[in-house]
């Protein structure tokens, strides 16, 4: 009888502990707004981070979050603009060429400290028209992805991921190549030398 009581008590404690383990904070797939790509552009002189969410609709679903940094943008997105946002699937960040000097280094440094982001997260520069096309056409990220894959296989070293860009600017102060996407050249990848 005593053993049964002890066993029951232990089971109760285990169940309670399981319930309080944090399962209420689950990132449920049916309620999550999964962000796939992010663009950084300037609108009326302000830096705007646009989070493109995963959806089956024909048009891209982008939500603008005005912020000065990616860290601030993520916090604002979660608290105000996009409840239940899931940022673990962010695959690519495209930064307007006019803004990279202001935001690129700090954003990449921030991303490198967060375990949720993959070090293989793609980071590219682009022109304003590319950002506009991103907001209008759903195929644009796929085209850019394919182009980036071709670039990785080429002989010239181009830093396309957060990992390689971070290593490039942290190890030396020299110029290094990053991928640049131009809407005028039909979203083909070019290399652009920058220094951070």
């Amino acid at each position: 009888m005593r053993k049964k009581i002890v066993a029951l008590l232990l089971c109760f404690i285990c169940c309670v502990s399981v319930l309080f383990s944090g399962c209420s904070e689950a990132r449920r797939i049916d309620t999550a707004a999964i962000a796939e790509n992010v663009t950084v552009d300037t609108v009326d002189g302000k830096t705007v981070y646009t989070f493109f969410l995963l959806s089956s609709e024909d048009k891209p679903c982008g939500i603008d979050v005005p912020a000065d940094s990616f860290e601030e943008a993520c916090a604002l997105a979660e608290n105000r603009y996009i409840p239940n946002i899931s940022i673990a699937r962010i695959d690519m960040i495209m930064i307007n060429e006019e803004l990279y000097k202001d935001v690129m280094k700090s954003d990449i440094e921030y991303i490198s400290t967060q375990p949720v982001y993959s070090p293989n997260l793609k980071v590219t520069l682009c022109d304003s028209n590319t950002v506009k096309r991103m907001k209008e056409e759903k195929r644009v990220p796929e085209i850019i992805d394919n182009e980036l894959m071709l670039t990785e296989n080429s002989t010239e070293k181009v830093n396309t991921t957060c990992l390689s860009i971070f290593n490039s600017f942290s190890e030396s102060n020299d110029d290094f190549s990053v991928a640049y996407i131009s809407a005028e050249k039909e979203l083909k990848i070019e290399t652009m030398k920058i220094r951070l």
Partner: protein
Amino acid sequence: MQINFKFPSNRLLLSLFFCGSAVILLQNYNISDNTSFLFNLICLVVGLVLCCIVFIPSMVLKRKYNLDFVMLTRRKTPRVYYLIMAFYSAYAVYTAEYFLLRYTDMFHDKYFSDAGVNVIAFIMIAICFYGACRGVNIITRFGIILSAFALLCYILIFSGGVQSLDFELHHFDFSGSAIGFISNTTFFLTPSFIAVIFAILSGYSENFKSRQIFVTLISLAVEFAAFLFFVSFALGAYADSQSYQTFLMSKISQISGLSGIESFYFALTTLSVFMIITLLLCCINREMGESKTILNVSVFSIVIFVLHICASYLNSVGEILTNPMLFNLFNIFAAFIIPGIYLLVFRRSENA
């Protein structure tokens, strides 16, 4: 009863290999910056040679006299037996806490930041309690199945990371300092805790051969070297931006565009920590006399849990419990000095 069966020594050492793996899997800024891969490799070799030396007393005891340390103490010094065993029980609790704290910290940091750390520790200890109640024989059998899964994990992690290797990120030169050497070697000496577990649990095993220990340590060395290599040449400076660099290394692994291989890293770490805590609880049970397994294991599981709560709320307790220098001192004392003294006395009395 299966619990009374002697099993092959190579199974015990296989389980100890998984225990030792936790050292590199839960590595967190333990390896100095500004040290090259070759330098770290040398520190690794030196560290594991020292581990090998730490193994000598328990190896001699098992090979020559077919005794484990608990039996030796009981025979030679019955008066201080309980005092010595109390020390080893405290050591087991400290070691369990050392790895559990790191594990829950990694869990909280990398896996699920909203999870209650003490609840995670409780659930983990509960599973280890169940495992320890079944006995060493059963746990080492489980280790065989674990080895198949671990092999799969290693293949996925390393083969997925191959595409990220970039030899320009790091150099094959030799750069490091004396302080770096001491610090890194101390870190690579950490697996010596498996010598203590072996010293206590070797009495359950048979067919021991000395080369089994060398194979275990060499396998650990190869594993550590592989992780070091990938961290240096796949991550480079990025490795220092986050804690638990091995996790980061698994995060960059991709196979045909499929990611999520860090979940295998997480599984491997969980299994390693499970092995460590369970085998340590088995050690405590052996030290306490094995007549009341459930009572022994449950009391010390509660002690480990309470200490974990203290460590999570009191930073000073946490710092003591996760201090690598203190841990290594403890290891050397428990695995080398005390058994070494006993062995010398035992041999003298045998010769006399």
